[in-house]
């Protein structure tokens, strides 16, 4: 019964992301290109919350994801537990709605041109200790992302930001070194949380440590954290945004490491709600009598599971071999058998879950991709590449059964087309090392990855694995056309024009496959019957979602 923790630590790759809708507007009006939100629960199509809470509740206990938070500092680590909890304490300065729409939050934004972004602090914004937020705090908070000493996980999203300056009593201006409309999206993740400068300077290295906490502007304030099992937030009674005040007085997070323990805790009501429920618990939770399980539709999360190339030489360095492997893969069977239908076949790394704008354009293009596996043609491609009988090594994280099954299927598929794929399970820590150490990666041709972007934009996913300097481009893949299209998309604010540039890059990436898409994950949310207001989209990763939880 004991299935080891479905770990995601090193799998989660973050791109502080953007909804292009926001980038194109001058004052936060987002008409025209709103994401239609592919986050449809089985309960009702187009639903982004499980319901609307109207009444207050004294205390709620929620699942804080697969491990306790390492830190409460919003910038230190971009992974599920941190991004689930922290937005409630340290909300992004721009507001992200459950349908991913970005609007004015503690600041309003205006992008007069591709190299300037002007932020205006709204009146009455206060920290949870009741003191007023100043433009200096805003600039300081953004600047922390650029400071190498802070080690912000979101650093690459601000790579084009050359200068952050206080330009008025209430205004802060960002100057870009290169045309970039994607910084707005970075500010709508926890990287854009406003922290109190005096508090950070006073606490130094221990800012965000469990015994110190944080001082931000969210609807909840930090109460206590033992660092290992229980994190308690209390309603911020000084919350500046009275329209979005929290319904729950005491919000507690717990972190059961064992999926069985999580299922028991949910079924017995010890934990009353969970987002990102491990897919292997779906069958258990379906029969729970005290709550409901919500299953998203195709594209309800931007999480994609891929085979990422990690070497510039060897068997898998030949595009034809990669094409063959991709062509032979029976993604439908993988989604149905290994993921029990809680994932969908994915034919392009930036799949349906990432289409936050120009959805029809992306969907029409996606529909044209070949979807039926063709083992004979694939074997022929391997022959042509002169790779028949050649070997490659594939690494995956041990501990969750799905990764192991997926690796086995890959191995069998490779065998069918004449490749000898050796699969290697790595303990989590060793697997995690693959992402920070080229030396650790040297032994493998490809690895299993699970990517996500906070807000849906295919550009961010493509830039990550397909751009020459992309954060997970580990195989040294470099294509001048792809880079040019990505740069063009980054500098384009109009959604339709941006989609055209993105698709141009993707057509090349479809051929070259520096990463082979496998499946896209569906949202899986469980909520106790006495509560409502839980988010059904991935937007919770960058919004103070806990404020919406309450009684009907």
């Amino acid at each position, binding site marked *: *019964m*004991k299935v080891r923790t479905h770990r995601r*630590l*090193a*799998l*989660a*790759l*973050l791109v502080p992301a953007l909804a292009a809708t926001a980038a194109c507007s001058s004052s936060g009006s987002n008409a025209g290109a709103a994401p239609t939100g592919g986050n449809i629960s089985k309960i009702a199509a187009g639903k982004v919350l499980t319901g609307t809470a109207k009444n207050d509740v004294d205390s709620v206990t929620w699942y804080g994801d697969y*491990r*306790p938070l*390492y*830190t409460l500092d919003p910038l*230190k*680590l*971009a*992974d599920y537990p941190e991004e689930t909890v922290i937005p409630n304490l340290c909300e992004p300065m721009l507001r992200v709605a459950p349908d991913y729409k970005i609007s004015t939050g503690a600041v309003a934004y205006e992008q007069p041109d591709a190299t300037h972004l002007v932020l205006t602090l709204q009146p009455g914004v206060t920290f949870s200790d009741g003191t007023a937020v100043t433009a200096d705090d805003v600039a300081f908070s953004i600047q922390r992302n650029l400071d*190498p*000493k802070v*080690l912000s*996980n979101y*650093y690459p999203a601000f790579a084009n930001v050359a200068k952050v300056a206080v330009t008025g009593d209430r205004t802060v201006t960002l100057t870009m070194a290169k045309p970039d409309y994607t910084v707005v999206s970075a500010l709508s993740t926890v990287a854009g949380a406003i922290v109190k400068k005096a508090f950070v300077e006073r606490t130094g*290295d*221990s800012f*965000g*440590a*469990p*015994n110190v906490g944080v001082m931000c502007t969210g609807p909840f304030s930090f109460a206590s954290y*033992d*660092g*290992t*099992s*229980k994190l308690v937030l209390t309603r911020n009674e000084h919350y500046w945004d009275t329209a979005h005040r929290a319904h729950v007085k005491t919000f507690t997070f*717990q*972190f*059961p*490491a*064992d999926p*069985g*323990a*999580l299922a*028991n*805790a949910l*079924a*017995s009501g*010890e*934990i009353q709600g969970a987002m990102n429920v491990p897919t292997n618990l779906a069958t258990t939770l379906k029969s729970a009598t005290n709550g409901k399980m919500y299953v998203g539709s195709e594209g309800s999360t931007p999480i994609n599971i891929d085979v990422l190339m990690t070497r510039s030489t060897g068997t898998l360095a030949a595009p034809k071999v990669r094409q063959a492997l991709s062509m032979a893969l029976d993604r439908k069977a993988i989604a149905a058998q290994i993921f029990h239908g809680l994932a969908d076949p994915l034919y392009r790394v930036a799949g349906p879950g990432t289409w936050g704008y120009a959805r029809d354009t992306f969907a029409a293009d996606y529909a044209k991709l070949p979807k039926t596996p063709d083992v004979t043609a694939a074997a022929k491609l391997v022959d042509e590449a002169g790779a028949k009988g050649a070997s490659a090594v594939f690494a995956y994280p041990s501990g969750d059964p799905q990764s192991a099954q997926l690796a086995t299927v890959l191995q069998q598929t490779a065998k069918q087309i004449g490749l000898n794929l050796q699969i290697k399970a790595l*303990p*989590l*820590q*060793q697997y*995690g*090392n693959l*992402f*920070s*150490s080229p030396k*650790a990666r040297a032994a493998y041709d490809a690895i299993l*990855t699970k990517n996500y972007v906070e807000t849906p934009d295919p550009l961010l996913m493509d830039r990550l694995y397909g751009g020459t300097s992309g*954060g*997970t481009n*580990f195989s040294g893949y470099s294509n001048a056309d792809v880079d040019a299209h990505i740069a063009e998309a980054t500098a384009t604010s109009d959604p339709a024009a941006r989609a055209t540039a993105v698709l141009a890059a993707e057509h090349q990436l479809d051929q070259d496959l520096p990463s082979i898409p496998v499946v896209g994950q569906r949202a899986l949310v469980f909520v106790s019957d006495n509560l409502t207001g839980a988010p059904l989209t991935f937007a919770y990763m960058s919004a103070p979602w806990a404020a919406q939880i309450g009684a009907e």
Partner: protein
Amino acid sequence: MPALVQLLARRLLGLLATLLVASFVVYTSIYLSPGSPESVLFGGRQPSPELLAAARAHLGLDEPFLVRYFHWLREVLGGDLGTSLISQQPVTAKLGHPLEVTVLLVLYAAAIIVVAGLGLGLLSALNPGIVDAGITGLVSVATAVPAFVASSVLISVFAVRLGWFPPFGFGDSVGGHLRALTLPAVSLAIISSGLVARVTRAAALEQNSSEHVRTAVSRGVSRRRIIRTHVLRNAAGPIATVTGLQVAGLLAASVVVEQAFGLGGLGQVLISSVQQKDFPVVQAICLLLVAAFVVLNLTADLIGLLIDPRARKASTA
């Protein structure tokens, strides 16, 4: 008695030496195992070489192997267990709650082992026939049920189906803690209770058939008194030793149960810290476990000595 003090002093010195050696062995093995704390801090992102170097320097990972160890040792001797590399939380604060959980769990399980093990063993030894056969059967089954199986079964019957106990978590009040720890403690205690019951039964049977007991019976001494002063007291030595070893072993075994019940005890923190190579935390937990193991064994020995003057004479001679 001075001989006893001498014995204590010797054992305590041994404890210190054990701790020192253990700390070095643990340190070396963490150092040699793959992975690094800074890779945890970077999550799935590839840091630039300068950033990586800055992070390593910041965490003190750029110092040579032995320098780092002695640095740590000096701080510990000064009473400072250090700060977690990953969360920047003082180690003592980080271990507070898990320690409470594990200590309560182990004490609870130890109580069950002593009561159930001793009780069943004596009952079985003193009531030959159907009671003995029944208990022996039960004990044989108990010694074959590992904690992870026991916890699954207990959760599904007593927590999920009957709802008598919570299946998860540590509870809030003292009463809540006890209720929450009942199933974990039982899961943890089953095997050891069986073993202790077996040893108790064997020791009691041996004493029961010994000459001094038979003499006492023939002299008409009351049954109660025979059991207390002749059987139990003479059987106490081996029972105390086995019980002590079993209870000390619980410290290590509790991790499985903590995981199943989501208790967040020392074992779970140890596992995650090992994975993160969070050296100060791993060291502190290992030292705690080693110390607890040695102290528990010493306690068992002392109990044996106090009960049995013969052993006292032998060990202090």
